[in-house]
């Protein structure tokens, strides 16, 4: 990894930091507009051309707000948990090929799928810490719910992620994305469906929206946060949403690779990546709008009694399909 201008440009601007944050805000805008349209409303329209800059306005406003740290909150964890979780999410983008090659070219190694998934669960653990460190009873309950729900849903996530890895015969995300002449979503649709449901739970979207359920526990682990830290916490949440969708795109929809018509392949790859990601975001938003929020024990029942056995079953069936595809 030579430390030249190209490397700095790739990491800081294009498929790296700036692109991800702007793309996250764009996805947040898409999500709010789609949700508004599904509820027959208009959604933000006055900030920026069609309200596109609304997430940016929210972010900057939060930055300029007064910063309150509760008196007996555990200072160190309270201050740094949001920023660290945000950086972990953005860091785990480094391994996903966005424009044909991963952000840090040549940084793909065998097994980076496992690394990305563990990074996601570490960041979730940090969200738990952020809730636990603010001494508000509501955020304590929200934090414990984050723990029970997210760590519970990581196991089926891992199992479902192994299915495409098995089909592609490698644990390297770039390789998996490369090998998909036919996107795995069509090959093993049931695994893709389960992965999307699991994604709903990971991102605390509506059927599993328990950790920051407004009506029961005020704002869950975000209750005590204000100003800059709240901005980072919300941004971390949005980046996690885009990251989840990106993993789904990489593993099941063939990543950035798609038919190239003419011109620079990197441009086309990025367009394909953005298009597929928006499809996944719209699908998750659709699921959010049609479900009510489940109780915490129902969420666990769905996880252990329904999702886990189905994930194991789908893995077995995928092995069968894999063996039938290219026999040993």
């Amino acid at each position: 990894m030579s430390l030249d201008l190209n490397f700095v440009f790739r990491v800081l601007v294009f498929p790296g930091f700036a692109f991800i944050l702007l793309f996250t805000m764009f996805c947040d805008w898409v999500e709010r507009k789609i949700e508004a349209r599904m509820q027959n409303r208009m959604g933000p329209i006055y900030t920026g051309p069609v309200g596109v800059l609304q997430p940016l306005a929210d972010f900057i406003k939060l930055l300029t707000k007064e910063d309150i740290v509760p008196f007996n909150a555990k200072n160190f964890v309270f201050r740094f948990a949001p920023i660290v979780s945000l950086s972990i999410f953005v860091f785990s983008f480094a391994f996903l090929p966005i424009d044909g090659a991963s952000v840090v070219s040549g940084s793909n190694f065998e097994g980076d799928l496992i690394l990305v998934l563990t990074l996601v669960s570490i960041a979730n653990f940090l969200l738990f810490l952020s809730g636990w460190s603010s001494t508000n009873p509501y955020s304590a309950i929200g934090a414990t719910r984050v723990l029970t729900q997210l760590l519970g849903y990581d196991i089926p996530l891992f199992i479902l992620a192994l299915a495409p890895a098995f089909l592609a015969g490698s644990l390297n995300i770039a390789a998996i994305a490369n090998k998909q002449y036919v996107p795995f979503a069509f090959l093993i649709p049931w695994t893709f469906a389960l992965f999307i449901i699991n994604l709903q739970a990971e991102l605390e979207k509506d059927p599993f929206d328990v950790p920051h359920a407004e009506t029961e526990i005020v704002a869950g682990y975000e209750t005590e946060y204000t100003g800059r830290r709240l901005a980072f916490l919300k941004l971390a949440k949005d980046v996690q949403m885009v990251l989840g969708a990106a993993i789904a795109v990489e593993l099941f929809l063939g990543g950035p690779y798609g038919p190239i018509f003419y011109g620079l392949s990197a441009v086309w790859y990025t367009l394909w990546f953005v298009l597929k990601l928006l499809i996944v975001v719209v699908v998750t938003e659709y699921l959010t709008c049609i479900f009510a929020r489940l109780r915490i024990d129902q969420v666990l029942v769905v996880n252990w009694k329904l999702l886990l056995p189905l994930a194991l079953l789908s893995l077995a069936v995928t092995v069968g399909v894999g063996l039938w595809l290219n026999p040993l």
Partner: protein
Amino acid sequence: MKWARLKSPWVLHFNSGACNACDIEVVALLTPRYDVERFGILLEPSPRHADILLTTGVVTRQCADRLKRIYEQMPEPKFVIAIGACACSGGVFEGNYNVIGGVDKVIPVDVYIPGCPPKPEAIIDGVVKLLKSIEGGKQSGKR
């Protein structure tokens, strides 16, 4: 920075003793017909996240210290809108034994919206007037 503060005013609603006619008009603002999300207004659950406090109803004695505590929990810059005749001045219930009076007896109020209850459009008009006055350099909370 003022652009961002004007474009995303997050709102918290507290009813300190109202007959909930104004409250259902405030909640009606979120629904499709009036949809205040056009202005970037979101109804926030916790005082920590809010910029504008929408108070409805006359201040009863038990609710007075809650109202004050919520006002203090909100981060600067913060504004208060008093919605309805009861919040502006105690309305019909002025003078009853358990009623302290309008909201301005407890916390500084920036915009008064008369009406019993004011139409949702009148509330939006109040918020727009508040945003215009912020644009004109109004300081938060201080008289």
